[in-house]
């Protein structure tokens, strides 16, 4: 059981001028399964390599429990990283690959064979130990790569985009395997991903990194429902943003006063409401809205609305949306318990800008 912490970790690649990682402070609790989430190029993989010791930081420290490991070479950190590509050694069999780390530690062959056999069956590769990596499917290779790291029982396990090379069907299987193995072993695990749905489904803690900085950390539903900043809300699919002022339990904005949940902070804020929480039909905080668009998305339908000239979006079931036609009018309600206030930000002047 090991707690991992990063203190002011910073890395700039030579020649780029721009920091890949801007002084990250982060604590990953012992035994947790944490998703390091962020768009491509936000510094996730760099952060992982800094933790694994494969690159050296310009500043800052990596600690396991209380002891700094920043100066240790990768092989002496007790941190094992599994890359996006399985990177199985092609000249070794699957069993030899899985036993690699144990051989490097100089364990007796009988003990290695025993551990490898147990691991092979744990990742459902029984009978494939004598094959070469090229004879395995992509999913099998990924499981072998996971087994090769887990057999070492590292203090911290790092998985870089473990699902991105897999077909959608295999992805779910691998996700469940990672979760169950993590819960069995209790190894502090960090999974890098750019997919917020994957992070929400897999991890019990999410660390969101935007542009090389820590944007928010917390359990998935906290980032989803109580984002700390506009960029976080946008990353999790937030589309409804109303600038205004909170006073005495009411939010004054372009759509008129809205009743806020109890305990809402006072002052200038940006109000956000998840599109699936915007209810079509009468209820608290009712408004009359004009329908601007109806888009069928499969399991859901997206409805574009205009309330007093302010654009809002709702996600609803296709059944409920079947009667809606663009140009028509509908009563909508904004339930107070679903309203969340964000600190105001300059970036709101350009709300259409997607976060990369």
């Amino acid at each position, binding site marked *: 059981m090991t707690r991992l912490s990063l203190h002011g970790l910073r890395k700039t690649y030579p020649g780029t001028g721009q920091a890949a990682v801007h002084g990250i402070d982060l604590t990953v609790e012992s035994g947790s399964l944490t998703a390091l989430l962020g768009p491509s190029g936000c510094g996730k993989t760099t952060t992982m390599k800094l933790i694994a010791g494969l690159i050296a930081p310009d500043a800052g420290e990596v600690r396991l429990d209380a002891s700094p490991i920043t100066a240790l070479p990768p092989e002496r950190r007790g941190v*094992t990283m599994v890359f996006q590509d399985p990177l199985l050694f092609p*000249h070794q069999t699957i069993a030899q690959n899985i036993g690699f780390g144990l051989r490097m530690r100089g364990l007796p062959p009988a003990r290695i064979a025993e551990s490898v056999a147990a691991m092979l069956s744990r990742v459902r590769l029984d009978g494939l130990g004598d094959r070469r990596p090229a004879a395995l499917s992509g999913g099998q290779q990924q499981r072998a790569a996971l087994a090769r790291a887990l057999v*070492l029982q590292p203090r911290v396990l790092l998985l870089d985009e473990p699902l991105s090379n897999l077909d959608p069907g295999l992805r779910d299987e691998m996700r469940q395997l990672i979760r169950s193995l993590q819960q069995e072993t209790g190894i502090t695990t960090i999974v890098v991903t750019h997919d917020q749905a994957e992070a929400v489904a897999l991890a019990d803690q999410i660390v969101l990194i935007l542009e090389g900085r820590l944007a928010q950390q917390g359990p998935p539903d906290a980032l989803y429902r109580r984002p700390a900043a506009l960029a976080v809300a946008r990353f999790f699919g937030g589309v409804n943003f109303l600038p205004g002022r909170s006073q005495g339990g009411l939010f004054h904005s372009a759509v008129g006063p809205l009743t806020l949940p109890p305990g809402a902070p006072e002052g200038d804020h940006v109000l956000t409401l998840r599109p699936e929480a915007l209810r079509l039909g009468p209820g608290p905080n009712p408004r009359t809205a004009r329908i601007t668009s109806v888009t069928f998305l499969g399991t859901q339908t997206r409805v574009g609305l205009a309330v007093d000239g302010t654009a809002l979006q709702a996600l609803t079931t296709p059944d409920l949306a079947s009667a809606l036609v663009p140009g028509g009018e509908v009563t909508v309600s904004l339930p107070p318990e679903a309203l969340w206030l964000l600190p105001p930000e300059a970036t709101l002047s350009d709300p259409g800008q997607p976060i990369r």
Partner: protein
Amino acid sequence: MRADLRTLAGLALAGFLVLPLIPLVGWSVAQGWRFPDLLPDRISAQAWTFALSPQSGVLASFATTTLIAATTTLLAILIGLPAGRALGMYRFRGRSLVLLLLLAPALLPGIAVVFGLHGMMLRLGLAGTIPGVILAHLVPVLPYMTLVMAAVFARFDPAFEDQARSLGATPWQTFRTVTLPAILPGLMIAALFAFLVSWSQYLLTLSIGGGRVQTLPLLLFSFASAGRNDITAAIALLYILPGLLILAVIARRITGRGAALTERLHP
């Protein structure tokens, strides 16, 4: 069908290589073999007995040549492997200049560098010594080694090394268990070529060795110019021995790898 073709190609190659050797074998055992005669007057082992006797110096020379070629190859690996890695894996300022400098000895005629090299060896006190000859042989050998290793490393994914380190391997264990097996086929070819380039050096050995380092090509030429066809033929056969062995090894590796590849495609 494919097996037949392969056999045919093998026979053609063997014929191409073996046929020119038959007269050589003939010369080495012939006594009094004059022009229109189809066969020599007498067969004798005299040339071979002389060539393998201590007073001919052939065996000592064989040992010297082997020592020089093996040491040159070893040094070329020690220098050319890291250099080839840098050239193959990284883009850096001055890379094309390094490549040009490396290619220069392979492009320039040997005779152009011999005199400068000789002056340098004299100043270093290495003229006429085996270490001097080895250093001189590195001039044509190192470009081969470095360029082949650069091509090998250009196809090697360094992420495998990161993965090995993260699994607990020290830098040396990583090289031995991950990098070396990946580059070994290329390294072997490069080493065999390096060995042969050194083995067949004449001009550099003659000038830097100053006649005191007697390698097999030097001995071969002196017997050839003395008009002893039988002894020359016997030495020539000894001289091409490593070349034939190396060819056999390479041919085996290439066909062996081909078989492994098809096996992988149809498991």
